[in-house]
């Protein structure tokens, strides 16, 4: 690992100042010379691999005093960005009214990593693309813009089929973000100018021609909280993977429904393991609204969710698998007892 300076930020201003000081306008956030340290499960790993090379680490864990509350309220949910994945997954109010959130967290990583990792760090988790993680590959447009993409014609079984470009097919690896994007979550961001909020759906950027720019967050900005409007007791997170536990998704679906007298009033569908960013399947949702559920409808919805999917040599199976995951998640959500 390369050497770095370490400082502990004891309040948000200090953190923002320390992170901004080393930032330049042309730095993508991921290559900024100062990086915040929360759980460290991505950052320290990638520093050991020499993928991330910050000269300064700003430990923001002391901010957890104010940034880790788990607050389910009547009209919605607020989650501090430094809340630990394990604490949110185990929270009664989250399990009862937001099972899609609780299960997306419970099914991610291992118990140890969930104890360390924070919600904010989790949504900022970097791709598991094996070419991105191995610096002996020169051609990675995320690490070296314009160098090409080794995954494109390489071993790409784990790579994305949605939101891809001819520059990058790296999969967004997280689970929790699919629950957030499905539920129209708001992300609260703290920076030099104070606090701003925006739809979580605007946080991640598809790779396009700039795969090195992964989010709209600027250097010096920190995620401080997430807010979810409403309650979604009829919601599920279904995750298909190579192992039964402790593995990234080959395909996952976050589904939330509002069903009254057998009719679907509102529907949310988001996909994981198959896309370059947390992926909202709005075309699929539109087919569900106002309908009564049956298997034929589930199949049409699943087809719509993957209508724009583009497979490559090893990952085309994810399209068929992903459709089955969507159909089964819908079935589970419709039949679950709440």
């Amino acid at each position, binding site marked *: 690992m390369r050497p770095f300076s370490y400082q502990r930020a004891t309040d948000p201003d200090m953190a923002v100042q320390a992170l901004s000081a080393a930032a330049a306008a042309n730095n993508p956030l991921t290559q900024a010379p100062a990086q915040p340290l929360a759980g460290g499960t991505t950052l320290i790993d990638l520093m050991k691999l020499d993928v991330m090379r910050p000269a300064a680490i700003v*430990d923001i864990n*002391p901010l957890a005093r104010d940034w880790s509350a788990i607050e389910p309220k009547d009209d919605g949910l607020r989650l501090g960005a430094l809340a630990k994945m394990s604490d949110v997954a185990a929270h009664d109010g989250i399990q009862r009214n937001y099972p899609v959130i609780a299960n997306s967290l419970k099914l991610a990583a291992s118990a140890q990593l969930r104890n360390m990792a924070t919600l904010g760090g989790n949504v900022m988790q970097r791709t598991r693309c094996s070419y991105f993680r191995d610096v002996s590959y020169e051609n990675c447009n995320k690490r070296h813009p314009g160098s090409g993409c080794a995954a494109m014609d390489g071993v790409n079984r784990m790579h994305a089929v949605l939101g891809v470009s001819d520059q990058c097919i790296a999969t967004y690896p997280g689970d929790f973000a699919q629950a957030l994007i499905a539920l129209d979550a708001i992300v609260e961001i703290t920076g030099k100018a104070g606090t701003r909020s925006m739809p979580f759906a605007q946080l991640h950027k598809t790779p396009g021609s700039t795969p090195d720019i992964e989010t709209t967050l600027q250097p010096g900005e920190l995620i401080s909280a997430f807010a979810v409007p409403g309650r979604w007791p009829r919601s599920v997170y279904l995750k298909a993977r190579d192992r039964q536990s402790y593995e990234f998704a080959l395909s996952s679906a976050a589904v939330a429904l509002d069903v009254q007298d057998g009719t679907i009033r509102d529907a949310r569908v988001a996909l994981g393991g198959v896309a370059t960013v947390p992926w909202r399947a709005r075309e699929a949702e539109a087919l569900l609204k106002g309908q009564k559920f049956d298997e034929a409808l589930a199949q049409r919805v699943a087809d719509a969710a993957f209508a724009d999917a583009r497979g490559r040599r090893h990952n085309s199976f994810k399209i068929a698998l992903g459709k089955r995951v969507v159909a089964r998640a819908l079935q589970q959500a419709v039949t679950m007892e709440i």
Partner: protein
Amino acid sequence: MSDKSSSRASAFDRRAFMAGVAGSALVPMTARAATQDANAPVAQDPALPVEVTLHVNGKDKRLSIDARTTVLDALREQLKLTGSKKGCDHGQCGACTVLIGDRRVVSCLTLALAAEGQEITTIEGLATDDRLHPMQQAFIDNDAFQCGYCTPGQIMSAVACVKEGHANNEADIREYMSGNICRCAAYPNIVAAVKQAAPEIMKG
């Protein structure tokens, strides 16, 4: 293996030795807190070692470390507490699992500087006097290991798994112990050990 179960005598010899080392490095709690505050706003020169006090198995240990040092490397290389094992060094295998506070974490992805001021418990800190921790005894009773390399991590993880309330049935134990890989595949016996120890640990 000699750290814990296969030879009680060698385990306690080492622990006694370490207690001596710790005694000479004891720093009062107040000094520890003051150090943390004083360090807080300062970004140090990365080329210079940093002073840090780690609280390990109930004792304060004053260390001079490179900022890059993980808790795992501080334990193994500086404090000579070699029970916690370095498997993958990337947070994937669980062999380095320790408790920080009451949480199980992978010490290979935890910076020692970030662990300052927190209680760290390693496999060497589980037993009390000449009595093994119930989970250690359960691993022996159930033959829950072969080569033993993953065992300290398995045991630390299992202790936390029980206290979290995630050891109520075999399915839960398997799910919540999935962060600890055993290449000898002693899994059935590990599950049996966790089941055996759980009631005793919950009883306190």
